[in-house]
């Protein structure tokens, strides 16, 4: 085996090690907040824009997703694109992205079924982790999309699916956002 030439390596590529100290001198977790079970996280604290901003950056491609958090990130990124297209009334394109977002997020809930307002990922670093609520929110938006595509059956399925995932989300964490989605799903009548 030839010896690796470190200078050569550095001139050819860049190795980025994030969180170098990792396990060696990670900061203690005493700063992490805890909330009572029935605490309702207000919209100012937990909202869609915050979730989007936490998951922007490197784009996750379906073929490159390997870890559960890749699927979460991919689900959020697809959702953001779907929401953008929804505002432009590009129904078919919005449907494709929102459905893809749900595919990603369903993989997440298979392995990590509980929503968490603040999931601790390392040290004191947390992320908003609400895969069930994101699916429910996608389904709420998909009802509008399917109605515009004149597909009432799919709209009814989205409503039923959304209510199921919303219930799962509320079992673990209560958010003002979830109650808004609940109201939205309740107001939605699939058949006009």
């Amino acid at each position, binding site marked *: 085996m030839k010896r690796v030439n470190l200078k050569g390596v550095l001139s050819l590529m860049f*190795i980025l090690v*994030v969180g*170098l100290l*990792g*396990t060696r001198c990670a900061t203690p977790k005493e700063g992490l907040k805890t909330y009572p079970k029935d605490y309702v996280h207000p919209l100012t604290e937990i909202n869609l824009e915050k979730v989007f901003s*936490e998951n922007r950056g490197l784009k996750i491609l379906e073929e490159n997703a390997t870890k559960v958090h890749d699927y979460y990130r991919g689900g959020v990124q697809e959702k953001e694109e779907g929401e953008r297209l929804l505002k432009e009334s590009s129904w078919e394109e919005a449907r494709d992205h929102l459905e893809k977002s749900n595919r990603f997020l369903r993989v997440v809930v298979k392995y990590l079924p509980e929503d968490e307002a603040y999931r601790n*990922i390392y040290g004191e670093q947390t992320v908003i982790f609400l895969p069930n609520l994101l699916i429910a929110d996608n389904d709420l938006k998909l009802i509008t999309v399917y109605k515009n595509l004149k597909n009432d059956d799919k709209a009814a399925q989205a409503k039923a699916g959304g209510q199921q995932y919303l219930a799962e989300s509320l079992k673990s964490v209560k958010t003002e956002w979830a109650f808004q989605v609940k109201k939205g799903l309740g107001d939605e009548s699939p058949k006009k």
Partner: protein
Amino acid sequence: MASKEKEQDLKKYKNEFKVSSPILIDENASAANAYGVWNRPETFFINREGKIIARALREVDWTSNNMKNLIQYLLKEKK
């Protein structure tokens, strides 16, 4: 790159483990977030074109055959 670590801890770490390479401080974890880092440590291998060509999700034994093979393979890439 160290996310949300204190400078004094980093200095201590550098001295203790005799680290000669530079360590950058990612104070508010913005770089870690942009790379989608949920584990520590996590290593990204970025080629000359700026593409991530490999990722290691846990501590790496840089002297292992696998790692040597990967680096040697990358070194053979044409400019």
